[in-house]
């Protein structure tokens, strides 16, 4: 290294001397790193030239005051909407899972719906469980919501003997990790009658009370839907391998979502586990996490469709949705509906309602936003329209003959 130039080149010192305070630390570090790489081809002058160029370039890239970044962001996300598909897709690698992507998903996100049309979780596991398929399966079985229906091949209501027969499917029991005794215990707990095991896989429930057909069918329904184990909302849990910074590890993908409960399960890594249900993230992890979730979900949709959109636009959308401390919808029940200006709201949707309400409340529209000023025919307060010149125009006209006008703040 540094053979050509003879002397040792202290790249870092040159960079810090020349760019100190003028470049963000991240860029300084990247610059030092990359320059070290090419050290053999560089001399002091070249390094200085590169650093100066970097500083000059960086400083020319900052955003201009007044830039209507909101409109640019809305256009940048809205415009590619026309190029998106409407169909749902199979989740990468897992054929049985459907995920909504493309335009419908994007609309769902900006609508801030309480539940997505295809809720899903990615459950990461802790050190003990993530490298072993068996242990991962164990956790998956704990998470998956299992009802008696899922392990029974048949449930028969017998009106004649006033009993209900539950015929279990041995394969399914095995698959879900449930024993006949587990099922018996669950039914016993319901306290609706005398439970006995007829055969290894047949359970008979003699009902305590006599009843008509509708009564017995109701009880049958109760047994069918009785929860054996797992977390409600998680319809299915599937094991996948994934390359991460921990090397190859096992990850559980679920159909259905229940973040609060899943995080409590032993073996789950709560720091990395996530869901596509933004409202759950808001409730469990808070508004900052929800904001990040919105960013992740939108970027995921856009990338999946092969659309190139700068993340800053997505940040801005996520921030306008969350900056009040709760997730607000982009639309009449959220961001737009809560606008201060009567005219802006009236111009968007439900025109007459906003006008009537404003008249009753004796509201004032201070004409500070873009729409209001378009409506009254004034200059909009963004971009070059943000600039104000403080001049006493009348005074100027008065003084025109006598000389220069006087400025007034």
């Amino acid at each position, binding site marked *: 290294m540094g053979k050509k130039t003879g002397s040792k080149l202290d790249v870092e010192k040159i960079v810090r001397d020349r760019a100190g305070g003028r470049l963000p630390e991240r860029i300084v570090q990247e610059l030092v790193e990359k320059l070290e790489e090419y050290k053999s081809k560089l001399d002091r002058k070249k390094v200085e030239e590169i650093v100066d160029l970097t500083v000059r370039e960086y400083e020319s890239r900052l955003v201009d005051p007044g830039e209507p970044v909101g409109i640019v962001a809305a256009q940048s996300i809205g415009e590619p*909407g026309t190029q998106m598909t409407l169909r749902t897709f199979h989740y990468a690698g897992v054929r049985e899972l459907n995920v909504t992507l493309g335009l419908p998903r994007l609309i769902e996100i900006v609508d801030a719906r309480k539940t997505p049309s295809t809720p899903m979780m990615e459950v990461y596991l802790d050190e003990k469980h993530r490298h072993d398929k068996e242990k991962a399966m164990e956790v998956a079985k704990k998470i998956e919501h299992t009802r008696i229906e899922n392990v029974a091949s048949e449930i028969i209501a017998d009106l004649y003997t006033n009993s209900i027969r539950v015929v279990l499917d041995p394969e399914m029991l095995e698959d879900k990790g449930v024993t006949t005794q587990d099922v018996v215990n669950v039914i016993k707990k319901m306290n609706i009658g005398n439970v006995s095991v007829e055969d290894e896989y047949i359970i008979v429930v003699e009902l305590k009370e006599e009843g008509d057909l509708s009564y017995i069918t109701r009880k049958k329904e109760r047994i069918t839907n009785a929860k054996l184990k797992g977390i409600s909302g998680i319809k299915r849990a599937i094991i996948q391998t994934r390359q991460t910074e921990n090397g190859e590890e096992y990850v559980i993908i679920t159909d259905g979502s229940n973040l609060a409960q899943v995080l409590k399960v032993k073996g789950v890594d709560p720091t990395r586990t996530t869901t596509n249900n933004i409202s759950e993230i808001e409730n469990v992890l808070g508004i900052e996490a929800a904001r990040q979730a919105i960013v992740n979900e939108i970027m995921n949709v856009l990338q999946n469709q092969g659309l190139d959109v*700068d993340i800053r636009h997505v940040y*801005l959308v996520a921030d306008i949705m969350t900056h009040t401390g709760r997730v607000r919808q982009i639309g009449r029940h959220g961001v737009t509906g809560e606008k201060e200006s009567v005219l802006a709201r009236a111009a968007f949707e439900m025109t007459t309602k906003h006008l009537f309400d404003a*008249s009753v409340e*004796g509201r004032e529209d201070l004409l500070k936003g873009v729409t209001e000023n378009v409506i009254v025919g004034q200059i909009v307060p963004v971009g070059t329209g943000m600039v104000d010149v403080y001049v006493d125009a009348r005074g100027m006209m008065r003084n025109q003959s006598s000389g220069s006008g006087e400025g007034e703040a």
Partner: protein
Amino acid sequence: MSYLPQSTLKVLEKIKFGVLSPDEIRKMSRVQIITAETYDEDGMPIQGGVMDPRLGVIEPGRRCPVCGNTMHGCPGHFGHIELAKPVIHIGYVKQIYDLLRGTCWKCSRILLSEDQIKEYLSLMERLERLFPNLKPRLIEHIRQKTAKVQECPHCGAKQKKIKLDKPTNFYEKDKGVRKLSPDEIRARLTHIPDDDVRLFGIDPKEARPEWFVLTVIPVPPAQVRPSIMLETGVRSEDDLTHKLVDIIRANNRLKESMDAAAPPIVIDDLWELLQYHVTTYINNEVPGIPPARHRTGRALKTLAQRLKGKEGRFRGNLSGKRVDFSARTVISPDPNISINEVGVPEEMAKLLTVPMRVTPWNIEEARKYVMNGPYKWPGANYIIRPDGRRTDLRFFKDRKALASSLTPGYIVERHLIDGDIVLFNRQPSLHRMSIMAHKVRVLPGKTFRLNLLVCPPYNADFDGDEMNLHVVQTEEARAEALELMLVQEHILSPRYGGPIIGGLQDYISGAYLLTTKSTLLTEEEVMDLLSVTDYKGELPEPAITKPVKMWTGKQLVSLFLPPNFNLRAKTSVNAGRLKCEDEDCFNDTYLVIKKGKLLAGVLDKKSIGAQQPESFYHWIVKEYGVDYARFLTDNMFRMFIRYIEKHGFTMSLDDVEIPPEAEERIREILKEAEEDVAQLIEAYRKGELEPLPGMTPEETLETKIMERLSRARDQAGEVAAEYLDIFNNALIMARTGARGNILNLTQMSAALGQQSVRGERINRGYRGRPLPHFKPGDLMPAARGFVYSSFRTGLSPVELFFHAAGGREGLVDTAVRTSQSGYMQRRLINALMDIRVEYDGKATLPDGTVVQFSYGEDQVDPARSDHGKPVNVDRIIERVIGHEL
């Protein structure tokens, strides 16, 4: 005169909303309208009718009896109608309902104790000051609380239940049910004290509750509801006028019945009718009552309908306005004009004008325009004298005299000429690049001409697209258009920080063919190519000197590159058999530019294409500026087109033909797949098919078949590609990224493959079969929409049907998508439009609310970023030392 426009002296600061009180309505009224008659036999408006001249003049030549102005000056004046009995205002029914439920029927006080009233008032005052967003929550709380109270805390009266029978009938339920007349309601509302009113979220200064029950209604000026003359000479009145006549008629009948002391039932009926007319006058789409209709059966457009919706006053006339000085016609391509020019038909140039202020320096020019007049380009259509009087040159005989009478201070509205700045737009205007400023080139013909390179930002093509043009009229607007909106300022898209303008289609094929290794050009050819550019320097040393001097295409490209430009990059053709990882590339697919010389590699989509970030063209724009970028598009790119023009480039049937042995192999592959599918079906029928987790056997079978068939199609495509010549024109287009892809070629030469509807094989139609050509339950590929034929061989009738079924889904999808994404974008724009960057880099709303403390977390403008990065350090190093690597 000052150069300050009058308008800058008057700035609207705020608009206050409120409800008109009966007194105000009477005060602003110039005439009480008492008769339903409009005109007498002579067609003269009747005094005291809805067309009373005191409501404003709209006929030319007449003077207003109130303000003395002609139709241009008279703003119109209100009248009023005194109602015989009060009626409910439909817009305030909810407020009336809340007030009636929340106040005592006897003493009209709010149903809260004095202490509570005091407490809530002070809370409300604090909320208004500190958290105005929370005020509605408090009001809702009070509303719910008061509605539940059983006994009045003030007078102790037992409360009765109020029922609202939509839209306008109120009932009181005690022992029996009794209807509350508007009279009674009004009386109760009148007695509610101001402070109590405030607790319902109503501002008593601007809206006293009793005003929600109408006793007087204002009659809008004639200007608001002009009547139109049909060709037959029949007068046709505005919908509002019709409705007003209805109201007066009902009102007068009610008054007469009351005077005649008619039985209460009759009076109530007439009262009801008056209520109906007043309601529909305000809003003709109230649920629960039939809309008032015109004689023809069309529902009338009354007040609310005028404001509402896309074509309503707000969205149709206030947020978006119709403008003068605009034009629209079909667009057509012209590669010979600059990207920032637009070709305007002469005919249009003669109608669109630019106001030109006469000065000592341009007076001769101005005289020339005036002398040419309105019909000879370049002329002028109007002149405006310093006192503001306009002269229409169409009707002025002695233009010569007029021209010589011009002095500085006159304004000449001259025709559009070359170099004028105009705004050019194509709908849908989805992003800011949909409206850009161009410089005018007046050209013969009847279409707008635009350079092909600006098609991507407009998303335009020439299959009949039309575009709009606007001529900016003021100096400020021109300056902003020139500095901010000119085409080259928008080469870089703010969406992803890369160029959105760039080569497409023939530009890319042309660039590839010109820069490819095998292209050698004679002196004559070089001269021809350079003749379409502005190149003025010497020719470089020829690459070959004997037997004749020959130049390479790379040498020509290098003539246009900046002398210190370095770049190493992969090309689009760098794929498959021609893959190269570094500059040591035998296939000539790795682009190397050192010190402004194109040394190796070809130019194709990855380097000069539109929407290609971190490409050759992107770095040129960033490092040498947008004007240099425009220089390249107007010279180098034009050379590419010239080359492909001379070279000749097409695609024929031969380009997709493959030899018989290839066809044989493809048939073989498809047959194999068919056999595999047959086996799968067999296994499924026997129940031996192992179902995939979470799937039924049927779904498993379908998935497996689809997988197998798509593999077969890919294999067939690979075979076909093997046999295609590498200099096959279709393949060149696909490889360079100019147009089409390998899949398209496969479908043309090998087989179309599986057609699908909703992601499934085609299975709809008859019971168990899509078409009667198959047996019910036939699951073989042919019966479920697999197309064995290629576009070259042609499709069988059944195959064509399947293909059409699949194709239609795409069309429906597009139609649904545009409306959905359009609405989403409208909402996004509405939610975000007020955000701007402050001087300190914050992203804020106009009231000062901070949305981001630092825009985008690093304050970098995405449009100026290197594909999202603040600075691309690798590129900077390459710029400085790239030629030594």
